[in-house]
């Protein structure tokens, strides 16, 4: 079974989620738990750092789709950063760049939150 690891850290008012390994139907619930925790503590500004992510399946993509609406309704967002090319291609093919913001660097994404809110 492929490994997956998720880590949550706060950078100012923004929550940064580091995802690592393989995000698929089996490991997606781990990421969902993190998002649920964020909702519980009313933290809606999220940056997902994809630096160490090797693979994402449709179930993994579904996690972001499930939570993005709530985040945006509460003046927050889910932004993506540090994505490897192969992972980005999957997002790109599905048209995610039209709906989500992608950044090369995590700090860039965090800064975007500062400007708005």
């Amino acid at each position, binding site marked *: 079974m492929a490994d997956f690891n998720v880590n949550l850290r706060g950078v100012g008012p923004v929550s940064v989620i580091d995802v690592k390994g393989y995000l698929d139907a089996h490991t997606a619930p781990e990421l969902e738990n993190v998002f649920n925790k964020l909702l519980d503590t009313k933290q809606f500004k999220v940056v997902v750092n994809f630096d160490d992510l090797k693979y994402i399946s449709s179930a993994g993509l579904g996690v972001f789709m499930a939570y993005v609406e709530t985040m945006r309704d509460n003046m927050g967002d889910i932004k993506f950063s540090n994505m490897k090319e192969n992972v980005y291609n999957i997002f790109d093919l*599905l048209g995610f760049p039209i709906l989500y913001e992608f950044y090369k660097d995590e700090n860039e994404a965090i800064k975007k939150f500062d400007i708005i809110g």
Partner: protein
Amino acid sequence: MKKQVKKAAQARGLENTILVSILLFLFNLIFPIHDSSILAVINEFLVFATVYFLYNYIYHFLHTKTDSPLSLILNAGILTALIFFIISILNAVLGSNNGNNEGLGFFNSLLSVFLTFVFISAIVYIFSTFRELFFLRQKKDPGIYFNTMLLFFAFSFFSNILTKFDSNLDYPHDAFYVVTIVLISINSIRVAWIAFIPKKQKYYLLLISIVLSILFGVTYSLVIQSNILRQTLYTFSPGLQSIFSLVMIYGTIYCGVIFFTTLFHLPTAEAFDRKVDEVSSMMDLTKLITRVFDFKELADTVTTMTTRVCNSDSAWLVTKIVGGIEVTSVHNVGYVVADEVSRTVLGSGENDYDSVEVIHYDLLRAEIKLNEQEFKSIAIAPLKVHGKIIGHLFAARQKENSYDIDERKAVQAFADYAAVALENAKLISESIEKERMEKELDVARDIQRKILPLNLPVSDNLAISALFVPAFEVGGDYYDFFELDDERLGFIVADVAGKGISAAFIMSEVKGIFKSLANMISNPRDLLIKANEVLKGSLDKRNFVTALFGVINKSTGKLNIARAGHTPLLHCSGEIMTRLQPAGIGLGLDYTSNFSNSLKEMEIQLKNNDIIICYSDGIPEAKNSSEEDFGYDRLESLILQNCDLKLDTISKNIMKELSVFTQDHSQHDDITLVLFKWIQKI
């Protein structure tokens, strides 16, 4: 077969007995008084034969009733009492006219024969009872001791007749008599069965045995006293009188031994009972574990048995769950109390007991305030599976006395059983779940097979080949063709995100949507926009569908496509491969104007022998053992190498190459491959 033989022998035994009895009866009718020694000896032999055959018959009969030794003894006791009663009455009635009984002749003889039969039956029955008890619960076969005793019984029987001829000849009989008594004493020690009867019955036995011992003793003294009965019996058959007194001695000694043995067994009776109860409870549990798969039911049985067998007032079972502990089953205690005590002892699951331990309530009392039940001592045993503690079994007493080592062991034994049961129940529910999932997979595969088109459209200038390989987990691939009108052929290749039965259901809905929309809308872009709107109501937040819709004009060779997040379409024209990836986001990702605004349509003019390749992401995302993707480049170059071949051969070669690439890596996703070749009519 063996049973039948035995039965026949037994039936024969009864016949023999009756036959000899009749002979004896007739003999005594004909010769009421046998003075001559020949007659006396013949009579003696007849009596012996009667006794012998009756004994043979009765002990077989009694052998079937050894389950309750107490009732065997009781029956023997009743018989003895009856004999005692008869003897007493006879003494009272006939005792006065001691002198002239000789003259009564016929009547007297008849009476004595009748009495003899009663006595013979009684002593044979009593003796057989002793025999059964003797052999009861014996590990080794002690038959030789008993048979020796039988032999001396016979010697005593026959030697007594000598005294009739000459009163000086009493020493052989006396010698045999004494030896027999010694043998009786030796054989009376075999009372192993007493240990196995329950405590309550032991009290009864104690009472019965002392009463019977006295009764036998008194009857014995009546028989050896010089009175009318002894005289009648002796006159009739000296041997019978001899063994009658011997059986009475046997009874006295045996019942005495029983009395003392039971007395000595009484202190250990309770422990013995408990051990027996424990063993039988364990056996019941073992049976239950293999039959009952509901853990709750088993847990209830465990707590009930623990309470009973371990002399406790209450028992309860606590299992570990995620983030704490849970009281699974209680017996004789409220859930709240059990929960409170457990939490005080175990915390929220972090304080484990590695082996059974007893804690005294006084130590806990400061921490718990309970008003209904107060436990003085509590035994706690861990439920261990593969060395991991998965719960605890509690047994509690309201009395002051603590749990002794045996009781602790018993609590631990029950805890072990509960652990096995818990593990069993878990494994079974897991296998049921697995089975259910496999069933679900079958259903999903079935749906998928029915959704895909059976036949491909046939056309003069358009060759079509379609291939579908389902993955083990069943993805949500779908393709279809629609004859829009005489000229135009529409086609769809779609992929529902997710797997299993839910994906299969969405897929069937997608089919319905496209089938109906294709009747109304022939523009690919408009059709996808409409499909996205319709899907809004049926797709879950995290679900989406990628699709590629195309329309080929069969007379002009014009191809229009729109893509909603699906893998790019490949266009192979001569030596040139083009990836057609018009903008567009997946269906269900967005329901605002973003979707329609971003969706672009593309139009290309096909040339002779151009090949169009549609596929699902199962191909480029197929992985090899080092988690490397098959990728688009590999696919494109493979098609370029094969573009001169027939379509079916091309797809076959692609699949071959894919399987070489992935090797032993299992197919993760469905694979769909739809190829078109445009053949220009000149």
